[in-house]
């Protein structure tokens, strides 16, 4: 994992939009006992994920892979 912190802002935004919910659980010794935050998708989040996947599929449909550069 190159930069774990890059995820935090995104997760925060998704949670604010109601696509995720989070809960805290007790930390392990390797974390110095500090809490760990777990995220779970809401029903709206699952719906948004499916829509995003469908949009991506539509975008790639008919595209020959790998994409080649025309000279």
């Amino acid at each position, binding site marked *: 994992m190159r930069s774990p*912190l890059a995820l935090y*802002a995104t997760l925060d935004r998704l949670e604010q939009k109601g696509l995720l919910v989070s809960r805290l659980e007790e*930390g*392990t*010794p*390797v974390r110095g006992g500090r809490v*760990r935050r777990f995220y779970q998708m809401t029903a709206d989040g699952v719906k948004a994920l499916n829509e995003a996947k469908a949009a991506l599929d539509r975008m790639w449909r008919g595209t020959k892979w790998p994409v080649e550069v025309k000279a």
Partner: protein
Amino acid sequence: MIRESPPDWLQKVLSLVSNARDREAISGDLLEEYREEQLPRLGSGRATCWYLRQVISVALIRLSGGRLVKQFLQLMCLFAAAAGVWLGVMESILQHPGYAGRMVIDVFIVVQGLATLFFFRLKGSSFYRAGVTAGAIAVALLGGMAVVRILQAPHFEGFVLNDWFALDSARRIDFGGSGTDALSALGLVTQAAYRVRVRDSEKPEQDCATTTLCVVRET
């Protein structure tokens, strides 16, 4: 077994720059990553550099989120207020405007306007965003114009008060997008109009290069 940890001062900096909600989770994630992945792979020195980069990125992410920006803008206003008081005292004692102080205040305005523009992550309607953005642009332009004008015009009566109003309006911008913020944006635009009016009312005969030169000419 004593586990190796990043330097204490870096961990304290991290707790200062991270928000209260995620403070413990973020420091725990980083500590776990540091001990489990980075330290065995990179060794102590480079792992500490990795940790430092993470702390910096937390600060930047938070800054771009607008929370620290508000504190930054408030700090700017504090400096401007202090400069205004100092300028007022100098004015009453020496009976002439303090160009350096006026320059300081106007530079604050430039910085504040640019910072407001740079860090905009506004929520709310497009009308609201357009209004506040226009206000920030106005503040930045006014500050720049004022700095240039300081070098040309001798008198600045009313400028300090006007600068303070502009700074106060910018300070009251809430990045959440309420009606009060729209009024603040309106205040910024009003400052622009006021600046233009003051500039237009300046008389040619008052154009001395500096107050000192004006005094010399009078004597």
